[in-house]
């Protein structure tokens, strides 16, 4: 559908044109948002890198007076936190947002506005965390924030609050990326790119997104519980009142260990992308590398206790985690052998990206070997929390992620800039980084064995640590110089680099199909893919696609659109209209920032106002979603006709809803696990004062009403689908009424039971479970009201019913988790011998 006389390409350029001037920041397209993400990530990297240099200066010699203990503790906390949470994971998401759509051959991911909202939350959350340097109470509990040190008694200032709220804010971006990547990779690929033809990078980001889905919710729960302990004095981690400091460690490391692989897997995938290009041949054992990627992702969830080998946990439990930790080395081995086999006799080209890949291989193998060492329980008793571990994980993370990332930045630099980075300067930056890295971190292995712990701001002389530390400090500045040279090269080459032209590296994947720099629309048409390396195996077709002679060579629904395909075999299913520029995501992020910023300072009124505004903006956003273009079916070329709207279980929107519910469900499972954990560590559960506080009848009645609410929502939606328009208000209205009744009776029952959440971890946990259900009933109610309003406005029909499906899902989830909580409270303690909370 173009204006009269307009060619397909002109129409594409019009609808995909990026706004100019300050309006540029209203853009939501991945080629803009991905770049901002990358720039912000590198900015935070630079900050954390400077913090690292400050630490190395302080440790250069015994008793240095450069940083005092408090300053040093703040610096190492912020270095770790920024590197892990504000740099490493987001920069990988940034690469995914920028490169994946091009590599998968589509114009954009399915939810650009969500990506953009995620970016703004990330940027503002990172700045909130950094702003603690302005206000003074810089987080100082280490990036792992162990309780009770980080709790209200030992850190009464706002230090921990900055960390907890800053991270929670940033996690919004992780959730957004997780939804965007899972749905994007599974549902928006070029036709014909079945999963077996999907590049490793796609597999890695799919795995990583699924890992985020299950790893981040426990941290989120931990954040909420710790903030509740700090603000409300609910003693989840206080051993004196039935809590347990180890609960925090379990929640944190259930996130913290997969986190490392969330960073490493994309790095490895970048290697699997760059290496074949420079060797001019496909990756040997592609399918085994896919297997290794998936296996690493899942095995990494069986490793979390290996951060707690010295905590006094029974040896048998430790041994299980030791076995899993050794097992995870096998998939890494698969990848290393696949790379070696690909290199074998390939006579590769030695450009900078390839140098970074080789540097990666050397460093990562060392990091992997020390990783096997620390997987050994008894050896880890010696080296855990020493500089040996510092050396190990910097070998894995800098070697496994930073070197591939810098290689990848050099490799993909032509896509946004149309230019190549300077080769000579690039080689300088590589060698400075490679030498500096090893000089910095190799001596730390020895220091750890000589007894130097981590997180010490100084150390006495005479222990044999002086010269190794001095060497490491000198190395750190060489490494820093290498990074600075790399950044200078980025800046200089952006405008002045040699023009890259078409496919400068002779790569085989789709992001290089068109000209550089990328056009705003991301390509003149969408190709049909028949190979893992389309540019190598079907060059003529790809050239035709680049000329606009394949699919979707003009906008068929007036707006920006991308193609939805079937998840496995990538058959075209639907043309999706995606969002264009606008400010609602920026405004929503700003309101969210007010909420978290004010919350950090415990200004609850302002925070609540920010929350209400955020909710209002999100509602407005939701109001304009679930669009149904006027034409029901469109021809996207080559005789392929697809619908423009679908509300079924293959729809991208439904997938997104399911992913969101899985995330929420993972948080709920973490909550249940916390409940079971506290039950196991307490000798009597519930403790005697809480026995028989609630009548069983009250609980059964509450559970019954929850079930009724879900059934009503289902019935209303089902009848509405069959054309009974009245059924929707009746069903959803009934569900809302029942929810109000449940909330009312539940709250009055709990209040009457006088549980006293500050007295013990048991009543505090019961309250959290109750509040969880109440919040979810609230969300379900809001969604129901939104759907009813949309119906009144004619935006919901028996066909256009995606919002109805999502609302019913929310009711199901609220009812299901509420029932599970009640069952837990009633049944679980009874099996432990003690009396339950209920009077039977």
């Amino acid at each position, binding site marked *: 559908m173009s204006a009269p006389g307009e060619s397909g390409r002109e129409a594409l350029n019009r609808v995909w044109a990026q706004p100019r001037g300050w309006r540029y920041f209203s853009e939501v397209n991945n080629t803009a948002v991905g770049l901002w993400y990358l720039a912000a990530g590198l900015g935070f990297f630079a900050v954390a890198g400077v913090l690292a240099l400050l630490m190395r200066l302080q440790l250069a010699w015994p008793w240095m007076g450069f940083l*005092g*203990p*408090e300053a040093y*503790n703040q610096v190492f906390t912020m270095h770790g936190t920024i590197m892990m949470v504000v740099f490493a994971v987001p920069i990988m998401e940034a690469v995914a947002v920028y490169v994946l759509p091009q590599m998968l051959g589509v114009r954009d991911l399915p939810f650009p506005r969500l990506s953009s909202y995620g970016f703004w939350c990330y940027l503002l959350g990172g700045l909130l965390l950094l702003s603690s340097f302005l206000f003074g109470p810089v987080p100082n509990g280490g990036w792992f924030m*162990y309780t*009770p*040190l980080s709790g209200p008694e*030992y850190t009464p200032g706002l230090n921990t609050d900055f960390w907890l709220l800053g991270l929670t804010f940033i996690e919004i971006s992780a959730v957004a990326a997780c939804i965007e990547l899972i749905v994007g990779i599974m549902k928006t690929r070029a036709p014909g790119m079945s999963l077996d033809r999907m590049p490793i990078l796609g597999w890695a980001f799919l795995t990583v997104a699924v890992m985020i889905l299950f790893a981040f919710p426990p941290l989120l729960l931990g954040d909420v519980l710790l903030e509740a302990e700090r603000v409300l004095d609910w003693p989840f981690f206080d*051993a*004196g009142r039935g809590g347990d*400091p*180890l609960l925090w460690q379990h929640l944190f490391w259930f996130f913290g260990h997969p986190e490392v692989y969330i960073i490493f897997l994309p790095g490895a995938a970048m290697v699997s992308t760059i290496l074949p290009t420079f060797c001019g041949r496909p990756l*040997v054992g592609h399918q*085994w590398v896919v297997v290794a990627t998936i296996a690493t992702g899942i095995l990494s969830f069986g490793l979390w206790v290996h951060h707690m080998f*010295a*905590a*006094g946990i029974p*040896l048998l439990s430790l*041994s299980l985690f*030791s*076995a899993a930790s*050794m097992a995870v*080395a*096998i998939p890494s*081995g698969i990848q*290393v*052998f*696949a790379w*070696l*086999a690909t*290199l*074998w*006799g*390939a006579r590769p080209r030695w450009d900078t990206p390839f140098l970074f890949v080789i540097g990666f291989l*050397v460093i990562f*193998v*060392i990091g992997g*070997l020390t990783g*096997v*060492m620390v997987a*050994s*329980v*008894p*050896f*880890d*008793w*010696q080296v855990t*929390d*020493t500089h040996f571990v510092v050396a190990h994980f910097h070998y894995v993370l800098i070697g496994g992620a930073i070197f591939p990332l810098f290689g990848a930045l050099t490799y993909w630099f032509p896509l946004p800039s149309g230019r190549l980075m300077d080769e000579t300067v690039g080689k300088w930056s590589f060698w400075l980084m490679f030498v500096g890295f090893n000089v910095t971190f190799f001596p730390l292995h020895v220091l750890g*064995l*000589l*007894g130097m*712990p981590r*997180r*010490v701001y*100084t*150390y*006495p002389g*005479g*222990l044999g640590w002086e010269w190794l530390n001095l060497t490491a400090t000198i190395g750190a500045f060489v490494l820093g110089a290498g990074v600075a040279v790399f950044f200078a090269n980025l800046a200089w080459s952006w405008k002045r680099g040699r023009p890259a032209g078409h496919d400068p590296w002779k790569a085989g994947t789709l992001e290089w199909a068109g000209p550089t720099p990328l056009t705003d629309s991301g390509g003149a048409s969408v190709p049909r893919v028949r190979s893992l390396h389309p540019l190598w195996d079907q060059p003529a077709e790809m050239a035709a696609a680049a000329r606009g002679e394949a699919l979707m060579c003009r906008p068929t629904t007036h707006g920006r659109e991308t193609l939805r395909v079937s998840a496995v075999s990538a058959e075209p299913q639907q043309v999706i209209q995606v969002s264009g520029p606008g400010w609602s995501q920026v405004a929503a992020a700003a309101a969210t920032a007010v909420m978290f910023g004010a919350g950090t300072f415990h200004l609850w009124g302002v925070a609540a106002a920010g929350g209400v505004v955020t909710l209002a903006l999100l509602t407005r956003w939701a109001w304009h979603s679930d669009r149904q273009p006027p034409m029901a079916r469109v021809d996207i070329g080559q005789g392929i006709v697809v619908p423009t709207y679908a509300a079924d279980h293959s729809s991208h929107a439904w997938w997104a809803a399911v992913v969101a519910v899985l995330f929420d469900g993972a948080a709920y499972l973490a909550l249940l696990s916390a409940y079971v954990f506290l039950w196991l560590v307490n000798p009597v559960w519930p403790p005697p004062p809480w026995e028989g506080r609630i009548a069983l009848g009250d609980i059964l009645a509450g559970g019954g009403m929850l079930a009724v609410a879900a059934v009503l929502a289902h019935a209303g939606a089902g009848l509405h689908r069959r054309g009974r328009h009245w059924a929707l208000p009746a069903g959803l209205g009934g569900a809302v009424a029942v929810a109000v009744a449940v909330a009312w009776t539940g709250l009055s029952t709990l209040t009457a039971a006088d549980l006293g959440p500050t007295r013990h971890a048991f009543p505090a946990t019961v309250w959290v479970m109750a509040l969880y259900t109440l919040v979810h009933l609230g969300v379900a109610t809001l969604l129901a009201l939104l759907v009813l309003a949309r119906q009144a406005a004619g935006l919901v029909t028996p066909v256009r019913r995606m919002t109805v499906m999502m609302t019913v899902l929310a009711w199901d989830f609220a009812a299901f988790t509420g029932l599970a909580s009640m069952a837990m409270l009633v049944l679980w303690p009874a099996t432990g011998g003690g009396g339950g909370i209920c009077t039977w």
Partner: protein
Amino acid sequence: MLQSALRTATPQAESLAGLWWLMLGLSVAVFAVVMALLAAGLLMPRRPPPGERVIMVGVGVTVVVLGGLLVHSTLVGARVAAGTDGDPLRVEVVGRQWWWEVRYPQDGAVLANEIRLPAGRPVEIALISGDVIHSFWVPGLAGKMDLVPGHPNLLRITPAEPGVFRGQCGEYCGTQHALMAFMVVVQPPADFARWLVGQGEPAAEPADGLAARGRALFLSSGCGACHTVRGTAADGRVGPDLTHVGSRLTIGAGILPQNVGTLGGWIANSQAIKPGNAMPVFDQFSGGELRAIATWLAGLE
């Protein structure tokens, strides 16, 4: 090296060091092989890539090596954790921000930042947290074991022969985590027995007038609100027990040698030495008064 994990004096630490040397040998071999393959692959003349079978071969070798290591490491862990048979000496160590209280419950001895053990006898060290999480680590004697509030832990070691070993907190525990060290002195059993009897006794009487003046100043300046000196009115429980402070090797939790000079310096301005520690600055004394208190304390052997 006082604090090295490779200079060991118990069968337990010995096993851990043995594990290290074994894994180092394996790792060097693996690294050499991988680097040789990498170099060969990069340098050789152009040829078609090998089939996927090589990956399988590599993975097979990895599985065998790792499996063997896992079995060995698990067995070593079980052996080390079990300790050795015999009638164990029980010592209690309470970690506090940022020092260690050491108790010998059977003998009534209480001291700080120094543990003495008899050579040749199994020891059970009960590890108790007094506030936040700490970790007890004497690399020459054993691996780390955390002190977790609500979870008393037990560490079993058997010091083999006399020697002095430095230990240090292994888990980040706040401002002065870095300067939370202690000494472990392994003595011949007879020396140890004598020492333990002495530690159980009340403080010695002042040897001279200067020391007597020091004791009077100590008691009149409020030091007893935090410190205990058995045999005097000082019975505070906040800071270390000073009854036999003059017999210890270090002050300030293993960071300075103990002598009359460092004691005086610590009293007058410990915040300059160990910023953030719980002891306030006592800068109200005259030079002579400070010297008197330090002299008395240094004489409490």
